[in-house]
């Protein structure tokens, strides 16, 4: 055997795509396939083509996310089990929500959201405690609580979906139809996105900052509940469209990512300003914060692009034109342009650090206006005052 031969690199097993998928992944794919097939056999007759496509799309997406981010598998399984369990507990009557112990105190959508909120508050405090006191334990607890909080939120949404049908079969719809429901989705998505980066960068010290914005959202949700926002209401005709099911969640990946990047911007500025402070020192390196900030904005931008395009396609079907300069639409464009400019400065001019952090923070206010302000202060097609 010649020497050159023995130096061949092939012996190091060039990884193929198949070798990157382990038995756990296969089990996960199998489970999702079974779930899909079961759903289609049981309920296929009631679903139209779009719904089947959305179901399969969601399964593929979940499979991919699970393969790419292992922790999400356990999470998804738990959410699935608890959701099915509560739906089973409900049976055919909404009254079970008041009578059954589990539903009443844990799993009915209202209880689940309450738990979600409480856990997010506690996790925020715990993250900051861990950072201040340099306590690994507190940080770990905070991280667990964040996982459970997002779990409660997700299960709550799934259960609310079912509850809407129990409440009145005519009203049944996916809970992404009003400000109350999307705020909860915002909390869940932002929480999960943060957990992903926490795992990737193995650093929990910046958790408090991100959870701060989630806690603010939870505060809003709790206040909003006191104004009857949690009531299940039927869909106005304009919202009765399968586009809603994909347009709204895609938007919220964007909003969540932008919110996270802004909070990381805050962490960045603090770290830079008080570099010598012993507590601040424990925050991740400036470059790492900067890097996550960029990644969050890139992810948010990608999803926001998709969401806006989907929105345009929906508008073409509902309002008679893909672009009407409706205030919500226009503000989505403003948000998009803002982050496009941000990305240009970073990628082509090489801007880094404090200016970009400030810009990300300002970006949050622009985003917030698009997300909330437009609904509160401006009227347009999106407010569905009339038909």
């Amino acid at each position: 055997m010649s020497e050159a031969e023995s130096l061949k690199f092939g012996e190091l097993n060039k990884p193929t795509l198949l070798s990157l998928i382990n038995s756990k992944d296969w089990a996960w794919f199998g489970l999702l396939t079974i779930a899909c097939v079961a759903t289609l056999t049981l309920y296929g007759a009631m679903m139209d083509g779009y719904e089947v496509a959305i179901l399969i799309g969601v399964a593929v997406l979940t499979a991919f996310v699970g393969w790419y981010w292992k922790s999400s598998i356990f999470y998804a399984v738990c959410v699935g089990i608890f959701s099915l369990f509560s739906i089973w507990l409900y049976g055919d009557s909404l009254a079970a929500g008041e009578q059954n112990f589990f539903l009443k105190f844990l799993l009915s959508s209202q209880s689940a959201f309450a738990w979600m909120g409480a856990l997010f508050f506690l996790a925020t405090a715990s993250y900051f405690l861990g950072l201040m006191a340099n306590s690994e334990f507190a940080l770990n607890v905070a991280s667990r609580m964040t996982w459970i909080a997002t779990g409660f939120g997700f299960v709550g949404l799934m259960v609310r979906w079912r509850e809407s049908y129990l409440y009145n079969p005519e009203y049944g719809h996916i809970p992404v139809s009003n400000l109350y429901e999307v705020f909860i989705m915002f909390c869940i998505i932002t929480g999960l996105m943060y957990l992903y980066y926490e795992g990737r960068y193995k650093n929990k010290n910046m958790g408090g900052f991100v959870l701060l914005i989630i806690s603010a959202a939870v505060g809003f949700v709790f206040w909003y509940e006191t104004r009857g926002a949690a009531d299940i209401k039927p869909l106005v005709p304009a919202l009765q469209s399968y586009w809603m099911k994909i347009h709204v969640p895609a938007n919220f990946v964007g909003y969540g990512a932008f919110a996270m990047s802004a909070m990381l911007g805050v962490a960045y500025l603090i770290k830079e300003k008080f570099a010598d402070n012993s507590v601040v020192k424990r925050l991740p390196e400036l470059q790492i914060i900067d890097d996550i900030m960029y990644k969050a904005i890139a992810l948010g931008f990608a999803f926001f692009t998709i969401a806006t395009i989907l929105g345009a396609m929906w508008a073409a079907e509902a309002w008679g034109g893909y672009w009407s300069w409706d205030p919500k639409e226009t503000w989505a464009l403003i948000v998009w342009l803002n982050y496009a400019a941000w990305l240009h400065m970073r990628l082509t001019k090489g801007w880094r650090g404090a200016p970009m952090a400030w810009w990300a923070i300002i970006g949050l206010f622009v985003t917030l206006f698009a997300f909330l302000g437009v609904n509160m202060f401006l009227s347009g097609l999106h407010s569905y005052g009339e038909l």
Partner: protein
Amino acid sequence: MAEVVQNLKKSRAKRFIEFIGSMELAITLLAALAIASVIGTVLQQNQSYNDYILKFGPFWFEFFEKIALYDVYAAIWFLSILAFLILSTSVCVYRNAPVFLREARRFRTNVQLKSLQTFKHQQHWQTEHSVADVMAMGSNFFHFLGMKSRTSAGEGYELIAAKKGGINRWGYILTHMGVIIICVGALFDSKIPMMVAEWSGNLKPETRNISASEVPDISRIAPSNASFRGNVQIPEGGKANIVFLNIRDGYVVQELPFAIELKDFRVEHYSTGAPKSFESDLIIHDDVLEKPIEATIAVNHPFIYRGFALYQASFADGGTKLDLNLWSVRDKAGTVLNKKTAIFDDFKIIASNETLSVEMNDFRLFNINGVMQPDGSTKQTNIGPSITFKLRDESGVAKEFVNYMVPVTSEGVTTYLSGVRSDPTQPFQYLHLPVSENGVEQFMQLLARLSDQAQVEKAAIETVSRTMGAALLKDQALAADISGSMLNLVSLFIAGGYEAVVNDVKARVPEDKQKAVIETYLKLLQSVVGTVYETMLTEQGHKSVNNADWAWFDIALQALNTLPYYGSPMYVELSSFEHIQAAGIQITKSPGQDIVYFGCVLLMIGVFFLFYINPTRYWLWLERKDDKTRILLAGVSHRHTQDFDKQFDRAAADFEAALNKNKR
């Protein structure tokens, strides 16, 4: 000399191109676009010009109009920003794309050792293996990393240059081409052709409120127009072959090559009364068709015909036929006149020598309101059909009324509601008329009796004889006096309510006695009116007057008290109707839509290429010195630098492991 000038010229042109394609200009334009959009959302667009005048006053109104703030997105300056952005982006792509692609294709085998040594990511080794062996191994290594590689040799060294993720550069091209294509597509669907027609004097928006057939040719657009977005309202059973396009405070008529007939319009409701669906059954008549096509459209479910998209956009009344009873409440109070009319019709009435015009504005079949329940909660309840109309006097001043057909029960009392207001920004004030078996007739009869002097006199005398004894009335003069003042009291009340009675007392009686007198008067008034009522009931054949009758009477008194302030000489009762609805259909033609969608697809793919494909390059530099092969592995990635730290470390470790494994 000439050559120098030429060069200077060239460089100026070049500099201009560079400026147009520059990042600075692009960012400035993006910012300008964002600010303009903010203005467009904060200032509500395309409202009626009267609203703007009210809001801003004449000076600012005119100023804002000059800079086209009422239709920002069609303003010249706004379109110029967009045009510059397209231009700037195109120039940017034109200049960068070839460079980027060439760069992406090249392997950079001409790299210098010196520059490799400045790289952040590098690793050195020494090995006994020959250069040729390590070269072979290196090629395999890069293959293992999924990279393409090229070898080259120079003076005393050999080199492998490897790369992957070049498709990232395509991301740049796709996103920017996407943006350009979207804008170009949108251009096809824009109002620009119409604006050009207007400037060149071929088109003039109509501002008068006239019927479509009267609109002159200068305000019409032929069916061949490639792109538009307009609305038309068609009543049930009606037909339209035009749509209206709004331009600023006017409109133009767009003709269609076919006609649309509305067969039926339906609103379905949830059990709360909130609307669940809006649907229109349409029939399309077109000469090219053998027989008309039928189609149903609903919100979110348009119908596309010959490239025209038909949308369910709104709904309104289509001229519902009404059968009204006009009850006079002033002169000849209590008499009734029947009138057949329809929504959008006008008619005249004469009252107190004044001619009033009645304009029937709207009919609503359902009115879902929060109605207070006996337990204090409010419940969404349908309070039945209503009509809205205006009463305009000779000087043009109008009051608006809304009358409900079905009685409403609120706080245990059942009444007919009629709302009135003179200012459209204010809420309605309601008149409550008591209900009996024969509707409002009972109340009107009471009103008629109270306006009849003989009836009131009779009742006055009866009241006095009941309360003060019949003996008193033997005195003729006193009797006349008493009945006269009671008559006065009642007519004061009918003309001005309790307030008129009170004011009358205040004008005539010393202050210290006012309170007592007022009390007595009001009591007297109520007994007289009560007597009139009792008489009426008796004449109608009632045996006795029960509690329910007196409860009715209380409401009637309140109604009589407010009636003088009602502001109308008549009460309009809706006795029956034939509901005719109209559907607002939006019709669009947007040939640019598919272009825009194509641009969107490019944009989406491009964004993912840009963000999630990480272009990386590696070099392996080999030198033979002192019987050893010196190895330098260097790598670079201008994206995701944090991730690349790890990637490079792993690659270097793998490479080292392979080297060691093959150690002799």
